[in-house]
């Protein structure tokens, strides 16, 4: 199997290779490069096709490479019925989309980039469905969000496209973050990092106390990706993308990632009350809202987009039911939807491309100019409407079979589904009939039949929709049954076919058709009736997105104005508030205040005088009315400190302190000389009280800390060592200096680096003037004189 592993890895890499190659291929071959580029997904498709016999035989093909051993993660994939079906759809439809895009964006200046994005997306999507490792799945998951961001924003000069791209990124990417948390929780619960392993921990997961949390997080990921209500709004907006993108991402693949995840996790997380309530509820709601919104649209792509929303709702609902028929129905519908929706989107693209508009009210009578397109459109629409002899019909039959049951819940959902399907029926015909029938009207571009690159893809998909229904047993054997088996982890054998079996499902189908025709007939009225509800459901969340973003920015702006007011004084005050807290709180909390010190009896008069002078010096600086007085007074405390050093046996320190203190004052004076200070710099009483309290708190805290720290016995090993060997080994009698230049010479090395840099920095500070570079030659004293 080693070569299979390597080949599969290569197949996964093919789209990425395509992404790298696309710009060059397009630059060389122009739009015809699409034929060349289509080879990449085609090869991958063929590769996956090879697994069909094995998988239909119930096998699972797995492989992978070591990746992050330190976290027990591997780059691993596995193929069962579900992932294989998805892989085939992705690469198969992907091939067609590449060709279609070659025609659709012919001559577009960014066609190369477009192909890169499409291929990146394809690779990511393929990655999602074949990943075994959680993290790999998540990585590819987010990669689809990112690439769809790029694709939706492809027409980036339009604000609407930019907005839609960001919206998609944030909704699906944000959901992805929830998914990450959910996956990590699953990792925590099970201890495994791979889907195939996780299947064995279904019971453990379901019984875990954090099951519900994990479920909600996973659902947040799946629902956002699959545009479930109330996260549905991004999908119609994503129609800003070029039509090949809509056809591919927003019908066949990306939006199905959520559905895929739910199907994948059904054996692990399904069959619990929460699962069986949440999924059908949101799925059903989405179905109704989506179709209702679709009715109202006049833009072809938007109409289709909303039906996509509802189809996804339907799928989620079916997964939530989890019964054998429901899952089988989901499997069939999944395939059917990919075929007909992909085709319809491409048809919408053709119409747009050839006429210059997608507004259904401005289109009519295209049948004569574009007969082939019409045929394709009709075939796909019939499948979508659930009419025989198309694959959609099979799906609908199986759905109704699944829904049949005696209880109120089943009835409710049956009603919902019938209503939804009827609306979808109406939409299908609105798309397939309205533009083609009637008297031709004037369109921005005079319509012609589409070139082969454009019609090839939808034709193949529409034809497949027919063939799949006709050879339904083959289709089931290869696709539907393995999918179903993978979802339920039990062998499945689906037998629904075009043969009509009288019964409740067929009756429901008939009802759906009748209802659908009725709605199509009365489309205008239905629209009007739904207007109010639609405005709320359709514009509400979408408008909310804008409000949320601008509100967030405004809120952040206001918050930052408070947190970052640009006043040094406030910054310093906050800093010292923290200092005070840190110095005062721990001793109080831990109840370890220092012992009260005894009165120092052995302090000489002159020592008191020095201490007094220090205190007076401080006070002098503090009470100085103007800053000049304060500066001169600064010298006092400096001298006092030097005196203290002197009195306690630190001549080096006193020496340095005297020098440095003086030089500091000198520099202060030199600097002050230049300043013309306003005399008034007193703070108001309230402020000074606050400042004093804060300062005293900090001072008190530091005193307490120092007292406490020095009351413990002292370990003087270092000092003993220095004292003993300073002269005998380091040849110096002044122990302090020996420490400075020898024992701890490295400190001094850093210290002089500081001094040198300070010199340099001050030079730069004084010399460099914004705008006017002074022409002073740095190393030439002759040039560096003043003036």
């Amino acid at each position: 199997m080693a070569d299979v592993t390597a080949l599969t890895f290569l197949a996964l890499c093919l789209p990425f290779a395509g992404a790298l190659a696309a710009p060059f291929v397009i630059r060389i071959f122009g739009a015809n490069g699409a034929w060349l580029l289509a080879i990449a997904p085609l090869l991958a498709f063929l590769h996956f096709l090879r697994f069909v016999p094995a998988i239909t035989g119930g096998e699972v093909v797995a492989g992978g490479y070591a990746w992050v051993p330190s976290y027990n993660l591997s780059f691993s994939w596995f193929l069962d019925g579900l992932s294989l079906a998805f892989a085939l759809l992705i690469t198969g439809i992907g091939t067609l989309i590449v060709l279609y895009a070659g025609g659709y964006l012919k001559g577009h200046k960014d066609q190369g980039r477009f192909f890169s994005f499409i291929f990146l997306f394809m690779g990511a999507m393929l990655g999602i469905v074949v990943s075994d490792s959680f993290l790999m799945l998540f990585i590819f998951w987010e990669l689809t969000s990112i690439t769809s961001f790029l694709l939706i924003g492809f027409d980036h000069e339009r604000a609407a496209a930019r907005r839609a791209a960001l919206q998609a990124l944030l909704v699906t990417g944000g959901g992805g973050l929830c998914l990450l948390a959910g996956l990590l929780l699953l990792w925590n619960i099970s201890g495994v990092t791979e889907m195939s392993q996780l299947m064995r921990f279904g019971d453990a997961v379901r019984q875990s106390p954090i099951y519900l949390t994990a479920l909600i997080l996973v659902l947040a990921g799946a629902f956002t990706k699959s545009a479930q209500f109330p996260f549905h709004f991004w999908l119609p907006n994503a129609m800003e993308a070029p039509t090949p993108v809509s056809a591919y991402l927003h019908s066949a693949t990306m939006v199905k990632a959520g559905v895929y995840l739910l199907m994948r996790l059904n054996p692990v997380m399904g069959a619990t009350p929460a699962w069986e309530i949440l999924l059908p509820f949101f799925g059903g709601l989405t179905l109704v809202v989506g179709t209702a919104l679709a009715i109202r649209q006049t833009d072809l792509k938007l109409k289709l987009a909303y039906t996509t929303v509802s189809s996804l709702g339907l799928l989620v609902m079916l997964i939530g039911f989890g019964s054998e028929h429901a899952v089988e129905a989901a499997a069939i519908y999944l395939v059917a939807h990919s075929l007909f929706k992909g085709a319809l989107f491409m048809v919408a693209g053709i119409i747009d491309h050839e006429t210059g508009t997608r507004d259904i009210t401005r289109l009519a009578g295209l049948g004569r100019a574009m007969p082939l397109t019409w045929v394709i459109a009709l075939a796909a629409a019939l499948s979508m409407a659930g009419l025989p002899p198309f694959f959609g019909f099979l799906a609908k039959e199986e759905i109704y079979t699944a829904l049949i049951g005696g209880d109120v819940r089943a009835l409710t959902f049956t009603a919902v589904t019938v209503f939804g399907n009827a609306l979808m029926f109406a939409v299908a015909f609105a798309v397939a009939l309205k533009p083609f029938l009637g008297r031709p009207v004037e369109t921005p571009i005079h319509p012609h039949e589409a070139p082969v690159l454009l019609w090839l893809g939808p034709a193949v998909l529409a034809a497949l929709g027919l063939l799949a229904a006709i050879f339904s047993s083959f289709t089931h054997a290869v696709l539907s049954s393995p999918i179903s088996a993978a979802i339920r982890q039990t062998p499945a054998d689906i037998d629904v076919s075009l043969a009509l079996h009288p019964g409740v499902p067929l009756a429901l189908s008939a009802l759906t058709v009748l209802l659908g025709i009725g709605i199509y007939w009365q489309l205008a009225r239905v629209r009007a009736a739904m207007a109010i509800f639609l405005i709320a459901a359709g514009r509400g969340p979408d408008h909310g997105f804008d409000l949320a973003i601008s509100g967030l920015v405004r809120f952040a702006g206001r918050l930052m104005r408070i947190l970052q007011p640009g006043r040094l004084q406030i910054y310093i005050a906050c800093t010292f508030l923290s200092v005070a807290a840190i110095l005062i709180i721990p001793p109080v909390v831990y109840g370890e205040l220092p012992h009260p010190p005894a009165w120092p009896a052995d302090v000489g008069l002159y020592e008191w005088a020095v201490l007094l002078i220090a205190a007076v010096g401080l006070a002098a600086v503090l009470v100085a009315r103007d800053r000049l007085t304060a500066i001169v007074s600064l010298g006092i405390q400096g001298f006092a400190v030097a005196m203290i050093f002197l009195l306690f046996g630190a001549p080096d320190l006193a020496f340095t302190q005297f020098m440095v203190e003086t030089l500091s004052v000198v520099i202060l004076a030199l600097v002050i000389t230049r300043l013309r200070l306003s005399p008034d710099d007193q703070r108001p009483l309230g402020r000074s009280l606050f400042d004093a309290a804060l300062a005293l708190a900090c001072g008190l805290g530091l005193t307490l800390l120092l007292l406490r720290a020095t009351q413990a016995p002292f370990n003087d090993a270092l000092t003993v060592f220095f004292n003993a060997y300073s002269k005998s080994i380091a040849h110096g009698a002044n122990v302090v200096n020996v420490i400075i230049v020898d024992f701890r010479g490295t400190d001094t090395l850093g210290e002089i680096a500081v001094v040198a840099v300070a010199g340099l920095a001050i030079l730069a500070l004084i010399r460099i003037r914004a705008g006017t570079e002074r022409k002073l030659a740095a190393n030439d004293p002759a040039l560096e004189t003043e003036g």
Partner: protein
Amino acid sequence: MITPAAIVAAASSAALVILGLALILTVWRVVAGPTLPDRILALDMLTGISIGLIAVIAVKTGFSLYIDIAISLGLVGFLATVAFARFVLSRGNFKSPAPPAKAGAKRRHAGGKK
């Protein structure tokens, strides 16, 4: 019997106390002012007394090495006073000087003039 060391010790202690007093008086002048040169003068004096104090401590402790500190203190004390004197000179005796011209004008001025 009073030893020579005791005499010196007593004298140095007394000197320390006297110098302490002198220091405090000088500090008072620094604080009290009233004019800037007064404070500067007092600060200069503080340096001078500190030199004396260091000399006394050298006597009291017997570490003559302190004398070098006194010498350098004399030198830097001088530097401080020089700097302050030039400070006084450049500031003048004006209580409320005009605020600086804002940015640009001022800069042009500083660049051109010697």
